[in-house]
């Protein structure tokens, strides 16, 4: 505890402040123990574990097919990616080949999900900074995506759309038309967000040069996904360790360039997501054009028993590299499922970046990392 003399015989003390577990800016049940000297933070320690639901242990008690709906709950804002990670791991263990149409259906569903997830990230970012209107604009568009998802797979949040060996239901041509119509409607809306939020002077002043994460720190602290790219590292699993049909698609990987301040500041982390929205739209359009005919699901036994072995699968989720380490002992149940998520590693850097910043900037830092409490604890 640091004591500062005021020169009059009095002294000030550090104050310990609890941010959370129930706090609107922590995006779920997440607690920070913050030691402040007035308005300036000396130390901020994230305290995670409030949302632990032992999803990994449940994996050992479920059949391979029966575990897929549980993976939805690992990250409810991007359930499709959690499905894909586990399904890909099971396919790799069981040597199942996914038909091309199934792969395209997967990519379409995943990219739609990425747009929805980034809309939440962008919207809640504005809300945490104090701009409530953009949040409603973002959720309005997300609602259209939810309606599309409802048509594709029948659920709005916990999709359970992907199956081991493909997708549960084929995407009908009329749904493809609706997705294209949504993209036509959505792309101009991104410009609207820029006018509403990104170019707003108050928003820029709140974020530019705040909580700068350097390239080296980002790599050392194991940041992944948009947070890593905002610091200027060109790394995207979709491009660098390709999976599914991503090698056939043409897309760019947006990298933070210090748009309004330093490279790797909170504004860059925000703006990388805005640019990824447009990139996802580009991927979606290509997928809709290239979609081949044929079955969407390979024939997989109801009692799926992959041979004994282990595998690690990485996919690029909206919150970065999502990894599934799955071990099979040749039985009806997975022997071990381990899920590695981007939000958890993003927590570690808060301790490093927070000393010296203001309390209000801590909120900007947490919001810019786009952490999702259920994904931290699983």
């Amino acid at each position: 505890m640091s004591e500062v003399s005021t020169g009059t015989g009095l002294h000030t003390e550090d104050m310990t402040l609890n941010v959370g577990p129930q706090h609107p800016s922590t995006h779920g049940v997440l607690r920070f123990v913050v030691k402040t000297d007035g308005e300036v933070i000396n130390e901020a320690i994230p305290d995670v574990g409030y949302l632990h639901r032992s999803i990994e242990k449940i994996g050992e008690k479920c059949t391979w097919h029966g575990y897929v709906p549980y993976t939805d709950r690992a990250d409810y804002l991007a359930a499709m990616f959690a499905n894909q990670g586990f399904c890909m791991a099971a396919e790799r263990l069981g040597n199942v080949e996914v038909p091309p149409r199934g792969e395209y259906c997967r990519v379409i569903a995943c990219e739609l999900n990425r747009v929805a997830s980034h809309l939440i990230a962008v919207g809640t970012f504005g809300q945490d900074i104090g701009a409530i209107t953009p949040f409603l604009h973002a959720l309005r568009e997300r609602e259209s995506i939810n309606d599309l998802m409802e048509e594709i797979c029948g659920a709005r949040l916990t999709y359970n759309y992907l199956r081991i060996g493909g997708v549960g239901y084929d995407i009908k041509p009329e749904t493809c038309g609706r997705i294209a119509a949504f993209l036509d409607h959505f792309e101009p809306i991104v410009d609207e967000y820029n006018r509403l939020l990104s170019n707003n002077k108050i928003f820029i002043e709140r974020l530019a040069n705040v909580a700068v994460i350097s390239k080296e720190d980002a790599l050392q602290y194991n940041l992944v996904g948009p947070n890593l790219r905002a610091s200027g590292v060109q790394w995207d699993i979709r491009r660098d360790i390709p999976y599914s049909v991503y090698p056939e698609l043409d897309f760019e990987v947006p990298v933070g360039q210090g748009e309004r301040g330093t490279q790797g500041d909170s504004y860059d982390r925000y703006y990388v997501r805005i640019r990824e929205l447009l990139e996802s739209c580009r991927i979606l359009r290509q997928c809709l054009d290239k979609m081949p005919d044929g079955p969407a699901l390979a024939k997989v036994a109801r009692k799926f028993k992959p041979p004994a072995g282990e595998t690690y699968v990485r996919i690029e989720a909206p919150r970065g590299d999502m990894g599934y380490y799955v071990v099979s002992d040749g039985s009806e149940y997975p022997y071990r499922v381990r899920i590695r998520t981007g939000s958890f590693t993003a927590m570690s850097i808060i301790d490093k970046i927070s000393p010296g910043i203001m309390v209000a900037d801590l909120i900007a830092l947490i919001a810019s990392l786009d952490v999702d409490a259920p994904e931290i604890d699983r």
Partner: protein
Amino acid sequence: MSEVITYFQNIKDTVSSIFEGMSITFSHFVRKPSTVQYPDRIAQQVQDTLPLRYRGILEVDMDICTGCLACERVCPINCIAIGIERNAETNQRDFTLFDIDICKCMYCGLCMEACPTGSIRHTQEFEGACNNPAGLVRHFVTESVPLYKPKKGGETEPRMIQKVDIGKRYLDEIAEPEN
């Protein structure tokens, strides 16, 4: 001097960007509203507007249920309970119990995919509020009913033809991914 200029430039930028944002907000006066006034002030029931694939509360058509227990086995949380007993009088197997606990159900849709006749289906119904959890257990068997046995060469009774057809159509359109 340059600090003074920056100061006024910042004020100008702030005010202009606020008006820029306001212009978008005001443009919504002339756009179509996207709000749905859910419980009462809606033109059409929400249930009717939902797509066919919507996974709502489960229902079972006991007349075409073969009692194969595929749904009970595939359910990851065991929310389906089926009881089958042999009837001493008719010497047939009868359903004595078919309960689905909607409280536990996570609407994953694995049971409807496993069903061979399409008798267990997700409906478009989603409003299930009630005062105690026991009210959310759906009982589909009130008195014991015999198991359905598919007739060779198709059904003859019009009522059964219709029911089998509904189940088949459901499987074709929604649950059967191979097609």
